[in-house]
């Protein structure tokens, strides 16, 4: 029942704090959630990917994640700097389903808050919950090291309840993966993201 509260809570919050206020609340919740999960360290990518498959990392509290080991991201030397991962089911899917079944249509405030985030922060939310979820992943990834190197999460794409897709072109460009490839992954997933060594990019290193 706690999850169902999101829609009425967001509806109430929008009337009091506006859509921008709700976006700020959600961003803080995502950050605080990830920070309170603690830090993790893995000796290498195989160890990290096994932990992801087995659901032992803070990143997999959101649900079952497919580790796409065929989509290794490499730097200019051919060294692996990260992988692409696909979240099978959006964590909000059961909640949305029960809300529609038991209460009625999802309130407009859900889209209003997502639009506010898309216009002001990054065009990557298909529902208001994406805001906290994506922030959680970003901060959680920063708290994980692989071979003593900090990680970074790049949101690549996600799919909404009605099938609308949000792609993040700058992230796709950074890991040098084609948009069509990600769309094919989205056929059987709800959210696609990359985990890479912080500050790295496919093909070359970022100049700080």
């Amino acid at each position: 029942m706690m999850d169902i509260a999101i829609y009425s809570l967001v509806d109430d919050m929008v009337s009091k704090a506006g859509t921008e206020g709700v976006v700020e609340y959600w961003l803080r919740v995502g950050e605080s959630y990830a920070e309170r999960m603690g830090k993790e360290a893995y000796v290498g990518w195989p160890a990290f990917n096994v932990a992801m498959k087995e659901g032992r990392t803070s990143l997999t509290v959101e649900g079952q994640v497919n580790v796409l080991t065929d989509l290794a991201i490499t730097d200019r030397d051919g060294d692996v700097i990260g992988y692409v991962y696909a979240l099978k089911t959006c964590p909000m899917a059961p909640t949305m389903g029960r809300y529609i079944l038991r209460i009625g249509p999802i309130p407009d405030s859900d889209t209003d808050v997502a639009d506010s985030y898309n216009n002001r922060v990054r065009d990557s939310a298909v529902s208001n919950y994406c805001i906290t979820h994506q922030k959680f992943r970003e901060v959680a990834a920063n708290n994980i090291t692989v071979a003593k190197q900090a990680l970074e999460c790049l949101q690549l794409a996600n799919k909404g309840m009605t099938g609308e897709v949000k792609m993040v072109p700058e992230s796709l460009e950074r890991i040098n993966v084609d948009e069509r490839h990600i769309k094919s992954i989205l056929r059987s997933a709800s959210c696609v993201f990359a985990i890479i060594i912080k500050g790295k990019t496919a093909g070359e290193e970022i100049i700080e």
Partner: protein
Amino acid sequence: MNEGDHMSQKNIESNPFVDVSVFLFFEDISDKQGVEGFTNYMVGQAESLAKSVPSEEYETWDDFASAVASGESVFSSFENIEQISKFGFVTKNCPFSKAIREYIKRIGNFNPVHMEATDHYNHTIQPSAAHSACMMHQTYRKEVAKRIKVGGKPLQYAQIGAKAHTGQIALPPESWKKVLLDKAGISETQGFMEMRENSCLYLLYVDE
């Protein structure tokens, strides 16, 4: 989310990732607006949620009681309810228990603000909450009852006992308790026995 996610929605459970983030959302509200803000939002969103559910009418008390026990009434949308006497009802498993367990498992001890908000509710609204989630739950029940008519009369709801995950039981003051138990048609000993087996004991009735 996938199209397949919407299959068999009726019985799918919430994702604990979402449940925990809602608790954190309320904690963030308390950081900005204090315990009073926490309580007001918790109560306010439960009222909004209840106002969104469809109204119901039943010809007889037995029709209503049967719909509640079988999960067909909006009153039992989020919990399994059992009738123990004509007007006495219990919920065996608190619908928030999974969210509470997951919070403790993933993050640790509950933020003290939850207990402070519970105390605030018990002192300013009614002394019936054992956990902050009870504020949402009991408000939802109270407001949903207003949307249900039995034999043309509005349904009335009164909380008798609520048990927290710590085992602590919230009970009304002695003078109220006797009246409520009498109305439910159960003795105090029976009431304690019910609270040993269940998480919540309450009264549903229509004015004669």
